[in-house]
């Protein structure tokens, strides 16, 4: 891999940018691999990267049915934080956040991880109890967190409405200063480039149509580009996990729903942090280009259509205007939808399965983007050692039978 550098940028510019190499190759699939990752989203590419970097597994392919990063990786609001309620969840997301903090250098690709802070607003006494509980738990887990009053929120975010007369007045907030946003496409591209440099084959336009299981062991996949054998197969396909599981005769406790988001036209910088609210459902940040990036709620029905119902968008607009009355005249530019796979406890499954050599990483719900490096890191460990890392052991498939759910629905109303 030719490393990017300031000097390289200049040199290439002088040469009219005619000598930039491809960021990743487009190889033909081999007959067999040590490991196959199904799904070329951020999580899958990260898994391949960490397999190659940390576990010495370089004969690895990432199979992507479309184009890499074309699923939820490219369809989210790019928020990164680790201030989850339950210890199990917060430690996993914290691992991810720590990886984010060095990711640009690590990958030699600027993923523009911007630690501009994440505010979770409280609008009722119960919200504030939940915030207090979560912040205290985060701190004890070594995760930065603080509780702010409405005046401090107003000082930090001048355009927010802290009027006590609001329908749902802001009573306070939690703040994770290390949280922030990143450039979503760059994450997929950066991991792809770095994994490719370590020998990983990234194969686009290659749809997996079957998983071959022999004597309880997964031995390969059938694809639109032929059969490919593999010692182990990791499946990371948000929005398709159930379909892939079905190919191996497995069932997953997942339901897929539309989740919508939208951006405004680019405006001059007015909001330099991330604001989330559960009661007044909406979350918002402003991109480096100036767009307000806003997440709406989940549509209630199951849906794979990558689009949702308009009233959900209307509601998000109302929520944003509640919080930021001045944004009423700003205009929505683009609206889109993703598919979120949701587990009963709003926590992911990063797990071995009853099929030997077949591993699933799914059910990230609305929390997938922020988990990208951490998810890949623990999944790579799970594949390489055929057992979960301590961090993802609680997120195994058998928790649904034992009842050991990690219910992030409960107190963390906004699980984005």
């Amino acid at each position, binding site marked *: 891999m030719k490393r990017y550098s300031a000097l390289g940028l200049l040199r290439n510019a002088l040469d009219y940018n005619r000598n930039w190499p491809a960021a990743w190759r487009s190889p033909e699939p081999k007959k067999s691999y040590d490991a196959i990752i199904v799904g070329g989203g951020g999580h899958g590419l990260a898994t391949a990267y960490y397999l190659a970097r940390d576990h010495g597994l370089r004969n690895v392919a990432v199979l992507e049915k479309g184009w890499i990063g074309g699923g939820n990786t490219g369809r989210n609001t790019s928020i990164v934080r680790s201030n989850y309620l339950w210890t199990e969840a917060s430690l996993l997301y914290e691992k991810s956040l720590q990886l984010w903090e060095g990711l640009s250098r690590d990958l030699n690709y600027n993923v523009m991880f911007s630690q501009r802070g994440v505010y979770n607003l409280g609008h009722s006494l119960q919200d504030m109890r939940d915030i207090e509980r979560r912040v205290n738990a985060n701190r004890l887990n070594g995760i930065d967190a603080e509780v702010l009053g409405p005046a401090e929120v107003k000082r930090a975010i001048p355009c927010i409405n802290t009027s006590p007369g609001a329908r749902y007045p802001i009573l306070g907030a939690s703040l994770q200063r290390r949280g922030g946003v990143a450039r979503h496409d760059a994450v997929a591209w950066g991991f792809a480039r770095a994994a490719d440099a370590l020998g990983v084959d990234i194969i686009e336009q290659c749809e997996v149509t079957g998983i071959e299981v022999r004597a309880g062991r997964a031995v390969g996949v059938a694809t639109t580009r032929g059969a490919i054998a593999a010692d182990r197969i990791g499946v990371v396909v948000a929005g*398709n996990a*159930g*379909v892939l599981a079905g190919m191996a005769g497995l*069932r*997953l*406790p*997942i*339901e*897929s729903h539309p989740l919508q988001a939208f951006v405004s036209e680019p405006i001059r910088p007015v909001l330099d942090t991330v604001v989330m609210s559960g009661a007044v459902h909406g979350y918002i940040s402003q991109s480096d280009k100036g767009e307000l990036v806003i997440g709406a709620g989940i549509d*209630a*029905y*199951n*849906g*794979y*259509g990558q689009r949702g*119902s*308009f*009233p959900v968008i209307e509601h998000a607009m109302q929520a944003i205007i509640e919080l930021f009355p001045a944004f009423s005249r700003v205009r929505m530019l683009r609206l889109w939808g993703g598919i979120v796979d949701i587990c*009963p406890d709003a926590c992911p499954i990063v797990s071995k399965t009853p099929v030997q050599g077949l591993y699933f990483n799914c059910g990230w719900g609305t929390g997938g983007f922020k988990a990208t490096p951490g998810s890949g890191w623990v999944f790579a460990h799970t594949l390489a050692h055929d057992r979960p890392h301590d961090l993802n052991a609680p997120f195994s498939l058998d928790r*649904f*039978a*034992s*009842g050991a759910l990690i219910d992030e629905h409960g107190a963390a109303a906004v699980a984005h």
Partner: protein
Amino acid sequence: MLLIECPWCGPRAETEFSYGGEAGIERPADPYALSDAEWADYLFFRRNPRGAHRELWHHAQGCRRWFGVERDTVSYRIEKSYRLSGAGSGRPAAAHIEASKEKRR
């Protein structure tokens, strides 16, 4: 915004309804006869298909009836909606009622 046909009130806007998930999940007659895994399957595991889906909707702002809908989860097109206690509910409702009456006796 979907247009959902309530079997009693006719087509109404989606905002009048609440969603109830996959239809036809029957509560096991004897939960204690089930292993933990089987119980978990009933509790948490759903078909979640890409394509035709039988699901429950509740006319929450209308007649308060739960009913069944057959909808495609990709195109969102609704093939039909049906009363749970009537024909086409996907489960033989009348027979079911008789059977459970039996059980109670």
